[in-house]
């Protein structure tokens, strides 16, 4: 975007949105929307509160455990499906269904089975992210050209070498893309899970804020989550960009 010969960065329009938010907030027409400046000062205050810090740490912990399981499991599942036709026939359908299923309806079941604590949140994170990681890994494995496979075999690579020295790297761009989308979904999952459970971590804070009309705090918490999600996906996007040079050339 260029105006009068000056390059305006793409995200600069967010500033305009921020100004609009401030104006609407000050006008008081939408009472759930306090001015952005109030939200930002609430944010600073919120970050210093111990209740927030505990909740955030607890959430981060669930997130980290869940994502680790989802990445390892999803990549393994994707490789299994990509390299084994029988596994693909048996599992492919379920993975596809779960990747676009309304998982929010499954959370009440998880609450029954795993209780109202951290375990349920971890399982939610896994369920929201593992399928897309598996599907993307699968796509990456299927895109690997046969000649690359045959090349490794012609140099008598063992199947472990084939997997770790050729296939993994060849599928890496897709795996990273899957992990990035998986991360975004996991953040959404963690929010949905905590909102529904509403007695743990950030869910409790959300509940308290909205029940007590503390909209500044509510928005501040939302902003933190947004920034967290965007930050994560940007880091992964950057990593992806680093291996992109060979992603395009294969297809």
């Amino acid at each position, binding site marked *: 975007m260029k105006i009068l010969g000056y390059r305006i960065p793409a995200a600069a329009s967010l500033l305009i949105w921020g100004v609009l938010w401030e104006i609407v907030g000050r006008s008081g027409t939408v009472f759930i929307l306090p001015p952005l400046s109030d939200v930002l000062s609430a944010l600073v205050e919120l970050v210093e509160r111990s209740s927030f810090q505990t909740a955030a740490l607890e959430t981060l912990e669930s997130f980290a455990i869940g994502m680790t399981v989802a990445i390892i499991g999803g990549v393994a599942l994707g490789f299994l499906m990509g390299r084994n036709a029988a596994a693909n026939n048996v599992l492919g359908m*379920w993975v596809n269904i779960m990747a676009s299923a309304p998982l929010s309806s499954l959370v009440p079941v998880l609450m029954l089975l795993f209780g109202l604590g951290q375990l349920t949140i971890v399982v939610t994170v896994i369920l929201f992210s593992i399928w897309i990681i598996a*599907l993307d890994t699968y796509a990456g494995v299927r895109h690997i050209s046969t000649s690359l496979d045959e090349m490794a075999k012609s140099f008598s690579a063992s199947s472990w070498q084939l997997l770790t020295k050729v296939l993994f790297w060849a599928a890496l761009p897709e795996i990273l893309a899957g992990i990035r989308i998986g991360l975004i979904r996991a953040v959404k999952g963690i929010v949905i899970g905590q909102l529904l459970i509403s007695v743990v971590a950030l869910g409790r804070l959300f509940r308290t804020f909205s029940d007590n009309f503390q909209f500044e705090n509510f928005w501040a918490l939302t902003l933190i989550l947004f920034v967290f999600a965007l930050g994560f996906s940007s880091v992964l996007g950057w990593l992806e960009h680093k291996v992109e040079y060979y992603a395009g050339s294969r297809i």
Partner: protein
Amino acid sequence: MTTSSATGDLPRAPGRSPAFLPTKAAWYRILSVVGLFVIWQIAALIPISPAFPTFTSTIVAFYEMVADGRMIFAYADTLKPLLIGVAISAGFGILLGISMGLNRLFQWFWEPIFVVMQAAPVAALIPLITYVYGLGLTAKVVAVVILAAPIIVLNSYKAVSNASPNLIQMCASFQGTRLQQIWKVIIPNAAPVMFAGLRLGIAGGFIGVILAELLITPTGVGDLITFHRSRADYAEMYAAVLSVMTFSALTVGLLERAEINFFRPEKKKGR
């Protein structure tokens, strides 16, 4: 942020072939369905948890709920906000997406906000919606829209702005006007990706409507889930959850088939 998240065209395992013939792959699939139900049954008989009903009792509960109409009324309730929300998102989303693809200023102004909405957990806002829109239909429609619209907008925009430059040049070489270029080349070229966006939007809308029913006021399928959970009728509760998953999988699957039939003749097998 790179394209794949917003375009969201999920890579697909070649699990579902259009043919109904019992090919080898189809037998595998039948086997995997049966296998899953057997595992479910065994796990419930052990039992792994008191809140884990058997597959058979869940199916019986499902039939009872369909037979006495509870399930049907619940779906009528759930589908109303879903359909209205998706229709609104599709209408303005596709229009906005196309204008973003065609106009730099539009794109500059709208793209970042939708990228944020697509990547961020907007579900967090659902509790706030009730303060503005109350507990009724409107609040649920809004919940569907905030979850369905971003992907529809972004897919339409990406589809239009990635329209094949070769075809656009071809159109120019035959002196096509800008209107002809948009109408005869860019939009048909973008249609498959826009439709895929619609499919993903509906999947997002499903999440939104169920979440709204669980969080705002229990109605429809969300009510079936909460009500039966509170009474510890786990078979009924599981039947409701299972029906949502199946219903959404069938809807998304049908849309996918429609997409291949209408927009991607090159992907159709056979012929």
